């Protein structure tokens, strides 16, 4: 392997930091979904990197499961955002004060 495990993990840490920044600063619901996606991808990168260097097939298997579950999460999250947009005519999460609308 030309690259070391540490380098992959540092990239993953950087992505995780950016995702946490997005989750804590942004108030736009779709941007927060972007940040969640970035965090999930950092986790997947970590799993595949450790799976390559150990080496063990479990890392890739878990990453595949994680990608599939993330797809389900995005589908539900986006439809929740659409419902909230229909209720409040806005996608700012500070406006989502009550669930009944």
């Amino acid at each position, binding site marked *: 392997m030309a690259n070391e495990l540490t380098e992959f993990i540092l990239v993953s840490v950087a992505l995780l930091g950016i995702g946490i920044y997005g989750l804590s600063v942004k108030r736009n619901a779709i941007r927060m979904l972007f940040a969640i996606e*970035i965090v999930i991808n950092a986790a997947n990168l970590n799993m595949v990197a450790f799976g390559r260097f150990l080496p063990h097939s479990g890392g890739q298997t878990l990453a595949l499961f994680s990608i599939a579950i993330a797809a*389900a999460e*995005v589908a539900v999250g986006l439809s929740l955002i659409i419902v909230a947009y229909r209720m409040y005519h806005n996608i700012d999460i500070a406006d989502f004060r009550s669930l009944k609308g």
Partner: protein
Amino acid sequence: MADAAFLALSVITIGSAIAALELRSLVYGSIALMGTLGGIAGFFILLDSPFVAMFQLAVYVGSIAVLILFTVMLVKRELIFKKVEDKRRKFVGIALMLVFMVALGAVILDSGIKQITTDEPAVDFREIGDDFLTYYWPALILMGLILSGAVTGALVLARRVDEENGQRVN
């Protein structure tokens, strides 16, 4: 030492992750998110796992990014470009991010992870298939149920009630 492909991929991935969160327009933001997801697929290829890379391209870049793009297009035009955020909150967020990165990075650089190297061949993707159908088969079935439940739930949530005669329309 890192090679050129790794450096280029990490610049693309991290740069477009920042762009996805900071670009003014949500449409460009979601295209930048596609760049991040594609960059992660490139890392998977560098890690000798082409199967996961193809899965990432098909699921993330192919479907999730397009789904996000269509949702962004459903939202009103002013909201796409509106950017509401506190200046103070932003600085606190950046400080939190830097502290987090430096602390976690220092821990990782100081730990024994550096000594993990391998000369063994990469895991064959046939092994992943074996895993899926032997040890992980309950999880595989559960995942299928979760996916179908999530898609059905998303369709039910996004349905709209017609106010005039109380019928549900799509």
